[in-house]
């Protein structure tokens, strides 16, 4: 009998990393990601199925265990889960909504350290001061020439989501920026 070939999924940034005093970059753990769109009327049913609240305020996120929901637009969320597939939970929901698996479309990069905000600000024009961008804040925005989703997970720690094919650019950009910021 013929042997079954198994394809192995590799991330685009497997061997990358950058560490400097004050600003370091690492690859975020592989995660399930769902692009969720839903009208107001469907939100409560989806919240119950997903087991976390969907934030209604601009630039806010919610977290429950390994799952997080990031507000991207008035009817749009990015749901990230490091352990279980959110689609399994939302599959049975009959209320009008759209949930698309984008787990492998995105790559996550974590920038952390005292100068993490400066490193991100090297290519992102948003105000990242603690007043304007507190812990838990998230936003779709730009980094240099690409679009990213920026999420402040903790004091001095930013999670950057970019499209997979843009990830070498994002990582190179952040490396250069982090090097400058930490210098």
């Amino acid at each position, binding site marked *: 009998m013929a042997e079954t070939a198994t394809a192995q999924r590799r991330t685009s940034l497997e061997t990358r990393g950058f560490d400097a005093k004050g600003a370091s970059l690492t690859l975020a753990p592989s995660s399930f990601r769902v692009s969720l769109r839903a009208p107001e009327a469907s939100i409560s049913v989806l919240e119950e199925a997903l087991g976390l609240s969907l934030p209604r305020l601009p630039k806010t996120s919610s977290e429950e265990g390994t799952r997080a929901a990031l507000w991207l*637009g008035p009817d749009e969320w990015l749901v990230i889960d490091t352990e279980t597939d959110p689609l399994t939970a939302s599959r049975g929901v009959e209320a009008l909504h759209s949930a698309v698996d984008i787990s492998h479309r995105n790559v996550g990069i974590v920038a952390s350290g005292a100068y993490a905000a400066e490193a991100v600000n090297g290519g992102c024009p*948003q105000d990242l001061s603690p007043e304007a961008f507190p812990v838990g804040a998230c*936003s779709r925005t730009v980094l240099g020439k690409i679009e990213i989703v920026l999420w402040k997970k903790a004091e001095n720690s930013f999670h950057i989501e970019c499209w997979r094919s843009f990830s070498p650019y994002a990582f190179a950009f952040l490396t250069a920026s982090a090097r400058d910021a930490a210098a």
Partner: protein
Amino acid sequence: MLLIRCPYCEEERPELEFRNGGQAHIARSTDIVQESAEAFERFFFIRDNPKGVIFERWRHIHGCGRFFNAVRDTITDKFHHTYKAGEPQPDLNELIAANEDRRMDEGRGDMPADQGPGSWANVPPDQINVAEPAADASKGDA
């Protein structure tokens, strides 16, 4: 960098996140088949190109993704007002009056009031719009 207030994100965001979407408040005919060629041309091709205040569509493409409307001055790039798509076109005079009230409320009553586009561009209003543009003497010389 220019800061533009997105009415959906409810805050000012850097201009790099936005894209211009052309003139606002152009309604498509509900009965386009019956429209004359001239009326369709006006709807499809003809746009204002004012030197001064213009109503425009903008899209927060690298943010919430929403289209919204803005009142912008084409001379100074100043955004006077932004509002959600579908909301009625604001009255320009009321907007100017509201801005004036805000200026007084902010205790800037002793500073000169905006005299319209002219003052923003540091050019007297009566010199901004000329009926007959001066002929360009150098044209065709090169």
